[in-house]
């Protein structure tokens, strides 16, 4: 079947929660949505990085929330894992006043202080998505937790939730604020007061997509596995969905088709992930 909407959702393993409840429970629970095996349409016409095509996927279960600081803290507490940013002190952070696409290197920044120590820690943000981690840090978490990243195609199928439009809510970008924590300012020279969240927001703070996944667009770029091109550098990782930094006038990455790229060792305060749980047979 092609682009089968209703049959694609095999089951919602945890009932979809309203945002407030979602915030309260996100850190404690891993809630997943099942997606059935099938053929799905992904990509966009004339997009060289993500051309329109049909893919055949096995069934998978994807987290409805992005992985939180609390979840990552549990991993670090259990393992003593030290992230790339903690080892190399080369994380890139943001503060209003920077020109488009410029980030600051901050030797104090890591997942505990996502935008550097001077900009505060995560103590009161344990239900926010973990950030300032690299692709390799994410891989370490996944292996420890017995989960994996979604592939580029799985992410898009779960994001689209059976839709064929540019956004899962249609083609009207003006509605993005209902579903996503993005940057609403004209540029990044002044702070964004367009919503309540200048940086990340607690997971589940915005409306979910039709299959119950929260923050598919915005909040943090979500790392995926897989390659855009078979010949691309092995130092590249890919992430999707845009982030709190992304704006209409900059990259507009908060959509169902765009695919970002970043070095596997780079740590930015707008990078995070959501996981896929293996289906045991």
């Amino acid at each position, binding site marked *: 079947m092609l682009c089968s909407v209703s049959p694609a959702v095999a089951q919602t393993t945890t009932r979809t929660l309203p945002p407030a409840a979602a915030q309260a429970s996100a850190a404690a*629970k*891993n809630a997943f949505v099942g997606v059935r095996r099938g053929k799905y349409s992904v990509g966009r016409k004339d*997009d*060289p990085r993500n051309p329109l095509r049909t893919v055949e996927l096995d069934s998978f279960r994807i987290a409805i929330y992005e992985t939180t600081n609390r*979840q990552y803290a*549990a*991993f670090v*507490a*259990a*393992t*003593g*894992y*030290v992230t790339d940013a*903690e*080892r*190399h002190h*080369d994380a*890139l952070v943001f503060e209003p006043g920077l020109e488009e*696409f*410029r*980030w*600051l*290197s901050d030797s104090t920044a890591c997942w*505990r202080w996502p935008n550097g120590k001077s900009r505060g820690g995560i103590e009161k943000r344990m239900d926010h998505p973990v950030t300032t981690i690299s692709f390799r840090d994410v*891989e*370490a978490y996944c*292996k*420890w*937790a*017995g989960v994996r990243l979604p592939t580029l195609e799985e992410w898009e199928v779960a994001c689209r939730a059976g839709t064929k439009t*540019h956004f899962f809510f249609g*083609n009207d*970008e003006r509605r993005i604020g209902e579903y996503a924590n993005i940057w609403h300012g004209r540029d990044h020279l002044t702070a964004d007061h367009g919503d309540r969240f200048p940086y990340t927001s607690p997971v589940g703070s915005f409306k979910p997509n039709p299959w119950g996944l929260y923050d598919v667009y915005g909040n943090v*770029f979500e790392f995926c596995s897989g390659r855009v091109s078979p010949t691309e*550098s092995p*130092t*590249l990782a890919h*992430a999707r969905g*845009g*982030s709190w*930094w992304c704006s*209409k*006038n*900059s*990259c*507009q*990455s908060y*959509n169902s088709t*765009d695919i*970002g*790229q*970043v*070095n*596997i*060792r*780079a740590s*930015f305060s*707008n990078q995070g992930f959501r*996981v896929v*749980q293996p289906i045991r047979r």
Partner: protein
Amino acid sequence: MKPTLICLVLAVCIYSCASPDKKAAPAGDSTTATGDNPVSQKTDSAATAGSTSSDSSGEPRLQARVVQDTLKLFLEGEDLSIPPYGLEKIKALAKKGVRIDDPYGGDQSTDSLDAKVYDALTLREKFTYNVIHPESWAQNCNILPMQTDKAARIYGTLPEIYNEYDWSDHQMAFFRDNRDSVQAWIKEIIQRDGHIGENLRELIVETNATGLIPALAETAKKETKDHYDLTTLLLLMEKNKYPEYVNSSSCKKLADHSSYEHPPYLVYNKANEDLIVQRATNFYNGLAAK
């Protein structure tokens, strides 16, 4: 203790502190820890390279060893301008670059020349090094949105140039602190090549090198496969809030991001090219008259 024994003890300490595969998943977590090694590691040789310390929060910090490695230089690309100043010297030095030896193994960082080596370079050599070796990372969306049909369109933004890499803070500071010299060197390269590479266009905008407007206006007329010299002129006028441009319909059109099919653009034709060049020239003449 003998040095080798110290290293061995250190290696064991680091391994037991930082190796996730020796620990269990948290109780109550609905995910299940596997028996697999969670992290691919090469701790044997690498761990001996590091040492542990604590920061003010008491969190363990693993100090990685600095070792030599060949730096990645951007000498070939679709459309890059390579500065000639001390190029062979920089190529040779790049073979003795500094990288952080990752105690966990795996791929390494971009990294840089040793600070003393860098400081000993002349200004021109530093310029060459900084242009061809971006030391930092580019974020996920630097490559977006996609720009297609470049020969027929004048886009409002420049394309990304270094894939996942970008200039570091100190490299940007170098370019800005030496703006006049940077401008003069770029001018020499344009005269040499009769063309401006993507990297230098980016640098012109970043350093607000308005003195290069006449050179850009000249090269823009020769462009056929894309029109990013015109884009550069537009960005310079926008950056300096030149009224004739920022109040124009062209500027408004390039600020209209309502289409999700493509980023905003102006249709390329002779009239639009002439208009952009004329406005930029007016802007430049106004600056020169001040």
